[in-house]
């Protein structure tokens, strides 16, 4: 027990290739993410630093529109790494996530070699080579030499089988292709998985990841985010807007307004050249933040927007 942490920290240094350090400390992570336009709180910064230092995938959960995907993009901007993205959806399979053999090209190759006196085993060896391999995001992320951020977006949308597929990639950063052998990561990517928690991910996936729950920020942070995203927004209006959004989130709504929606709202106000967010303006532009008619009615009633 007492020697294992040391072992781990030794093992966690990348083998071969140049030394990669993603962030040097939590405060460094916060500062560089902020420079990349992402205002991280202390938990986010610490977890992002740990994900880099321990080289473990980072699972980010939270309601829609709180900046889960943006975190991965910000990490790639802050560290100058390239972003490889795998968008998950229902029905995503191995062929779309990992790799696929180019059947058509293989068929052509077989047909082309029929006239020659090549033996079957030669043809067989020939058609299962790199030339006929179509790499998909997971495999390309692992084979890259440059620093890479791998974003696996909306993992909860996939089927349970795909999670099994991810396990090898997430724990050992390798992919086994039966015809070619095992491809091991040259340089471990910074992996970010996002999920809306529409279903519980399996214990096996969660165990391999660090976990971060992103929630709606407090009023002050949200104000900073809105003003940094929407230049030209007056401080006073930003304050009013954040207060209104905070109030809306306290109501029992089907879909509470997200940060992305408050930013949209701020942009709307700029576009309409509105310098003061009073009750009438809120009532008129409420459609930007609330997307259900029952939510709309409730907000108008609770905030007494139309007397």
């Amino acid at each position, binding site marked *: *027990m*007492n020697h*294992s*942490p*040391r072992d*781990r*920290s030794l093992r*966690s240094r990348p083998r071969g290739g140049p030394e990669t350090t993603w962030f040097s400390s*939590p405060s460094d992570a916060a500062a560089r993410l902020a420079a990349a336009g992402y205002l991280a709180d*202390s*938990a986010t910064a*610490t*977890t992002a*630093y*740990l994900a880099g*230092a*321990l080289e*473990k995938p980072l*699972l980010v*959960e939270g309601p829609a529109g709180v900046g889960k995907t943006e975190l991965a993009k910000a990490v790639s901007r802050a560290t100058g790494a390239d972003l490889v993205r795998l968008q998950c959806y*229902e*029905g995503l399979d191995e062929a779309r996530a990992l790799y696929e053999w180019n*059947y*058509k090209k293989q*068929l052509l190759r077989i047909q082309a070699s029929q006239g020659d006196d090549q033996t079957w085993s030669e043809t067989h060896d020939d058609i299962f080579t790199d030339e006929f391999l179509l790499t998909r995001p997971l495999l390309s992320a692992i084979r890259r030499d440059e620093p890479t951020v791998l974003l696996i977006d909306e993992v*909860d949308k996939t*089927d*349970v089988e795909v999670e099994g597929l991810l396990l090898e990639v997430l724990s050992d950063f390798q992919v086994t292709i039966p015809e070619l052998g095992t491809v091991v990561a040259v340089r471990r990517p910074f992996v970010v998985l996002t999920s809306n*928690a*529409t*279903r*519980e991910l399996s*214990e096996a996936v*969660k*165990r*391999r*990841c*660090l*976990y*971060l*729950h992103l929630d709606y920020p407090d009023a002050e942070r949200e104000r900073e985010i809105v003003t940094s995203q929407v230049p030209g927004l007056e401080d006073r209006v930003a304050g009013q807007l954040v207060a209104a959004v905070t109030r809306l989130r*306290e109501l*029992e709504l*089907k879909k509470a307004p997200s940060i992305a929606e408050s930013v949209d709202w701020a942009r709307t106000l700029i576009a309409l050249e509105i310098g003061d967010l009073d009750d009438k303006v809120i009532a008129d532009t409420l459609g930007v933040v609330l997307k*259900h*008619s*029952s*939510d709309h*009615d*409730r907000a108008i009633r609770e905030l007494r927007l139309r007397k």
Partner: protein
Amino acid sequence: MTNSGLLDRHIAFLEALRGAGLSVSLAEDLDAIAALSALDWGQRVTVHDAYAATLVKKQSQRPTFDALFDIYFPRLVGTGAHGLQDDEAGEGDSGVRDNAQALAGFRNELLEALATGDQQTLARLAIEMVGRFGAMPGRGPGLSSWSAYTALQRVAPSELVDRIIQALLAEGGADDAARRTAGRRLGGFTTMVEDEARRRIAEEKGPDHVANVAIRPTIDRLDFTAARRADLEEMRREIYPLARRLATRLTKEHHARRRGPLDFRRTVRASISTGGVPLVTHHRPKRPHRTELVVLCDVSGSVANFAQFTLLLVFALRDQFQKVRAFTFIDHVHEVTHHFKPGADVADVMTDLAASTAHAALWGRTNYGRAFTKFQENHPDALGPKSSLLILGDARSNYSDLGLESLKEMTAAAKHSWWLNPEHTRHWDTGDSAATPYGQVVPMVECRNLGQLSEFVHDIL
């Protein structure tokens, strides 16, 4: 790390987490250690974040984790650095620290802090409040000597609400905004006081003791019947996400079983792109089977919460069923289906349901027998060979006629029937509970919390 006692504390903390129902594996344990080695331990919040990132993988378990972390890694020891410094001069006997004058002074200080919303002062006051007014000396060994309840009763911060609002209004601001702010700050302060009392008790008796007795279960494992007002609101907020998760899971499972007969035309068409070799077969989709659901629920005081949650969940999942009809009863049956309009507002539905409870009662004493008979008389068309019957209630019929005959007729008419009982199995058949006689007619299932409820709903679909 081995000699400092830190490892023991770490292991004890993990044990407590496991005891509270978090599944912390050995791999996660090692990750936590690795994470701590990669960080400085100077900041308590950093250690907290590192533990949270490596050990807690479900947001619903987060409150439990936070409470346990506060117990095992307390913010301060004893009264802390600036605990009771202003009493230093008059120290001697404890009577001086706690008297009417001190109380009045403290309340003024608290009022000021709550009005300005200064978190640091509030934290200091919470520590002082438990130390001064929450101490219960001389109650003998084995009894806790700090009580948040006593402290809150003595100081009674809730009586300050009006004065806080006044102070906020004086600074300018709308009336209801001030009221909300005051409520929120008071709530926050009460939580601080409770945490502080728990910390003091943990310091005296060891964290393991407190971890065993003072940690509430997570929201999906909390009994409907034991829920407090705030818990009920939190549960209500959980209903829609829960329904969405269930619906996604069901759709996925249906799709997994979807492969119907071979679609010959699509398969051949697809094979053209691979030189006539049919590499992939295509199938016709299978039509999902949808049930009609009839829900009959007891809405008398003792089980009303449970009935409301189940109804909300069932209606949130309405597109998974062909048709849903809901009836409430106490000693008379009343149909409530029309309250659940598609896209209706949850809070409104709850208000309507509460208002319509009056229609379900004639005398107001639960009578299952009468309710079943009336149901058979008034709604004979509700149950058919395609419908499933779901009865919700604790089977406590005030020793009246059980109406087993009517119930047998109802179950015979329906395709399936279930009875959900919100009581723990060990309470069945105690007092006036008729769980066994009813259970012989309709299979009875224990359903005490949101977790069990969602599992049940998933299984019947």
